[in-house]
C-alpha cells in the first residue's frame, strides 16, 4: 500500500502548483484580513482539507511543511517524524512499523531531489510541532506567521554548503 496519490509522483509539477497557489493566496491577503483570519479560516478550511486529504493524505497538523519535505506529508510516518527517517527503514524501502507502506521519508527524499524550487529545504531543522495548531488551517496560519500572531514554525537553516543532490 502506498500513502498519498499518484499525483505525488510528479513533485516538480506539484511544487510549481504550490508556489502558484501560495502567490494567489498571499495576493488575496487584503480579502482574508478584511474578513478576519478566523472567518477566512472557516471559509477556506473545507477546501484545504479536501485537496490536501485527496492528494497528500493530510493529517491536519495545522503547520504544513509539505514543500519542505518533498511534497510528502511527514505526519503519515508512524513516529510523525518531521526531520528525516528513523534508523529502521527496511532494505526494500518500506516502513519498519507498517511493512506494506513505503517509508514516508524515503519518498520525501526521492521526490525532493526532483524539486528545483524547494527541494533542498528538506535538510533544514524543523522545530518541535505546536499541537495547538492541530486542526487549524495551515494556509491561514501562514498569514498569521507573516503578521507575527504566530511565530513557531520557522525551520532552522542548515549551515552547510554542500547541497550537491539538489542542484
Amino acid at each position, binding site marked *: 500500500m502506498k500513502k498519498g496519490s499518484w499525483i505525488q509522483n510528479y513533485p516538480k509539477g506539484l511544487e510549481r502548483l504550490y508556489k502558484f497557489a501560495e502567490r494567489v493566496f498571499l495576493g488575496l491577503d487584503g480579502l482574508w484580513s478584511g474578513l478576519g483570519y478566523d472567518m477566512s479560516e472557516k471559509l477556506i478550511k473545507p477546501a484545504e482539507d479536501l485537496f490536501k486529504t485527496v492528494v497528500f493524505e493530510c493529517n491536519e497538523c495545522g503547520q504544513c511543511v509539505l514543500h519542505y519535505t518533498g511534497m510528502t506529508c511527514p505526519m503519515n510516518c508512524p513516529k510523525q517524524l518531521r*526531520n528525516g527517517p528513523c*534508523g529502521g527503514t527496511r532494505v526494500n524501502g518500506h516502513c519498519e512499523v507498517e511493512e506494506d507502506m513505503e517509508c514516508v521519508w524515503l519518498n520525501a527524499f526521492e521526490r525532493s531531489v526532483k524539486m528545483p524550487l524547494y527541494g533542498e529545504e528538506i535538510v533544514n531543522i524543523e522545530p518541535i510541532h505546536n499541537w495547538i495548531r492541530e486542526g487549524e488551517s495551515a494556509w491561514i496560519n501562514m498569514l498569521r506567521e507573516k503578521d507575527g500572531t504566530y511565530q513557531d514554525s520557522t525551520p532552522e537553516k542548515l549551515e552547510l*554548503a554542500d547541497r550537491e543532490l539538489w542542484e
Partner: protein
Amino acid sequence: MIKNNEMIAGSNLEKVLRAGHFAVTGELGPPTNADKSIIDEKAEHLRGVVDAVNITDNQTAVVRMSSIAVAAMLIEKGLEPVVQMTARDRNRIAIQSDLLGAWALGAKNLLCLTGDHQIFGNHPEAKGVFDMDSIQMLAMMRDMHEKGIIQSGDDIDVPPTFFLGAAANPFAPPYEYRPYRLAKKIQAGAKFIQTQCIYNMPRFKEYMQRAGDMGLLDNVYVMGGVTPLKNVGMAKYMAKSVPGLDVPEEYIDRMRGATSGIPKENKKARRQALREEGIAICVETIQQLQEIPGMHGVHIMAIEWESAVPIIVEKAGLFPRPSV
C-alpha cells in the same frame, strides 16, 4: 581534528575524547524487574574497561528499570553513565523534567534518541508519544545550555550542560540522505555520535568518506557501534529480522564455520567456539574502525553479554583505559 575543543560538561568521556584518545563506551541494559543486584553484577564487568556506560531507555520498547535511576546507581558506584533518553514515552514536559533531575543527580552525558516504535515491545497497545524527534531534543538541550531557555522559550536559571550525543545509522535507506541527517544532528548540538552496529564495513567507510567530504567530521566525535555475535541464530536474526541492521552473509558463514570439527554432542565446546568467533569478528571490526579517518572511539553493545566487553577491549589493545 576537532576544531572546537572547549570542554562542556567535563565528563570522563568528554575528557577522553578531547584528549585525542580512542574512546570506549559500553552498554548496560537495565533489568526487566526491580532487582538492583543485576545492575551491580553487570556494572562490575564494565568497571575500568570502558570510559562511560550507556544506560538504555526501555530499549526495543520493553519495560525496564528507568535509565536515569540506573545512571544514578552507577554514579554511586563510581562508574560514568551516558543517559539515553528517547522521545517515545515522554512529551516535552516530562523529557525536560527528567533531564533536569538527571543532571542534578550527576549525569553528564546524554544520548538523545527518537526511540524504537512501541509496536516492537511488550506493550504494543501503548500510545506512542513522539512529541519531538531526536534532532528536536538535541536542539532543545542545546538551547537550554546556550540560550538559557527551556523549550517554551522561558528562561532557566541553572540549565543542565550535558555532553550531548546522538545516534546515526548509515545502514538504512535512503542512504544518500543519511549524511544530511547527521549534519542536522551536529548542528542541533550533538558533540558525539554512536553509530548503529557496524558489520557492513564498505558501506560504513563510504558513509564516513561522504561525511568527511561534507566537512561534518570537524565538529563531532564519531564512535563506531559494534555488537559481538553470540551464535548463528543471533547472526541470522540480526540479518533478517532487525530493520536497519546490515549483517553481510560472510559473517553468518563465519559463525557457522566456527563449530566445524567439534562433535555435536560437545555442546559446551561448540558454544565456546561460537562465542570466541563472535568476539574475534568484533575485535577485527574495532581494529578496522581505528584506521578510518574521523573515528574517535568504539561503542560496544554486548547485548545481555556484558562479560564479553573486558575481553573485547583487551584483545583490541584498548586496555588499560586512559585516566584523564
